[in-house]
């Protein structure tokens, strides 16, 4: 609770600075404008921030997403790490995604921390009780990256306490793989992700996990178009953490988080989501808050092709 109040205080003081007032106004206009975008291409993806379900991007659709995470930090300033995602459905069984990461550490600096390219493949062509998806990502980031899109190995909040000037000097090239298992049952989605990450600079494999579940507040749709009806709201929760390395596969000394999620999925393809996260172990950040907005552009590939 104290962490949340601290976040609100910092967010408020940041918001009243003249430069932030302009960007806050832009965000507000963007959010209000989102309600008037023509109703097209509503997504069926789950609103998880860390876990993945087996629902891929519809082919030809482009989803533009902007998310941020605020985290409390012991031994250094708290941080906000925004990232942007461009997610494209190449085929019905292959989704590719490009990320741009950055972060601001209070009392330190604001820096660009790298890029990531991810691909997800559905090996089975039909729905089953448990649906596997294979995930491969190449990361070109620095040690200053604080987006916490996954927690693996012995990742801890001490890693984020290193000053930006020092952490940003160390570039890492990592290969991240995931086995995504996911099921839908009576409106619920249950997802389990097993993560294996390899630093290509001769570091051992690190492992982690992410679990997610969610459900819309109302399963059947209402006949009238609406923005505020229960069918557009989704509630869920995630749990994620590290599982040690190939040399020490363990829960001991690892970080773990639990995070409820709320999402507002507008019929026009705009989704707002928020998720407060709570650290469960001494090595975890005590409090994380993720929030973001995404917009799905239906038929992007077809529209692009029609230009040439």
């Amino acid at each position, binding site marked *: 609770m104290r962490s949340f109040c601290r976040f609100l205080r910092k967010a408020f003081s940041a918001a009243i600075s003249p430069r932030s007032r302009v960007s806050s106004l832009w965000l507000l206009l963007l959010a209000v404008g989102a309600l008037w975008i023509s109703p097209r291409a509503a997504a069926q993806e789950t609103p998880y921030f860390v876990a993945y379900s087996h629902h891929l991007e519809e082919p030809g659709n482009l989803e533009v997403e902007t998310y941020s995470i605020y985290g409390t930090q012991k031994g250094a300033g708290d941080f906000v790490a925004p990232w942007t995602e461009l997610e494209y459905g190449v085929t019905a069984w292959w989704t590719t995604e490009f990320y741009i990461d950055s972060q601001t550490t209070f009392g330190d600096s604001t820096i660009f921390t790298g890029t990531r390219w991810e691909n997800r493949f559905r090996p089975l062509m039909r*729905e089953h009780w448990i649906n596997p998806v294979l995930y491969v990502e190449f990361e070109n980031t620095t040690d200053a990256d604080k987006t916490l899109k996954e927690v693996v190995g012995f990742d801890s909040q001490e890693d984020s306490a290193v000053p930006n000037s020092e952490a940003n000097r160390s570039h890492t090239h990592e290969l991240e793989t995931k086995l995504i298992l996911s099921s839908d049952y009576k409106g619920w*989605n249950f997802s389990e992700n097993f993560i294996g990450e390899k630093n290509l600079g001769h570091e051992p494999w690190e492992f982690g996990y992410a679990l997610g579940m969610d459900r819309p507040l109302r399963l059947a749709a*209402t006949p*009238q178009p609406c923005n505020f009806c229960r069918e557009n709201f989704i509630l869920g929760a995630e749990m994620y953490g590290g599982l040690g390395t190939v040399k020490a596969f363990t829960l001991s000394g690892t970080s773990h988080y639990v995070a409820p999620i709320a999402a507002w999925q507008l019929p026009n393809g705009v989704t707002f989501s928020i998720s407060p996260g709570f650290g469960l172990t001494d090595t975890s950040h005590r409090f994380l808050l993720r929030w973001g907005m995404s917009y799905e552009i*239906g038929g992007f590939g077809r529209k692009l092709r029609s230009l040439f």
Partner: protein
Amino acid sequence: MRRLVICSALLFASLAAAASASHIHTSDDRGVLAPIAKAPVRTRNWKNPFEGQPDATAAGEKLFRQHCAECHGDDARGRGRAANLRSAGVQGATPGELAWFLRNGNLPAGMPPWAGIPEQRRWQIIAYLKTLH
């Protein structure tokens, strides 16, 4: 490393092109489109719980415009590889077969599975589709 990334991208692109070449517009002896007719026989008897409910049909139309019209067109007559949903090949299928197909999709031909939207909403879409013949 860069060469590996380029080769992988080319391989995936050729796989995608090969997959997208699969044809969906063949039909079975009832005239139902082949990918829909692949539904297990037991699905033919599944009943739509929303059948004959005007509110559900209206909700189905709303959902159709949100999820389906981008590919199948506002008039549901299809475009490109997306099938004409007013055709006998689709309308000849039972609601149960359509429910199975909507849940599973036809991934090699570009039709995504719609298992991510609740079952009730899929039935509402089918209630609407059945008014289009």
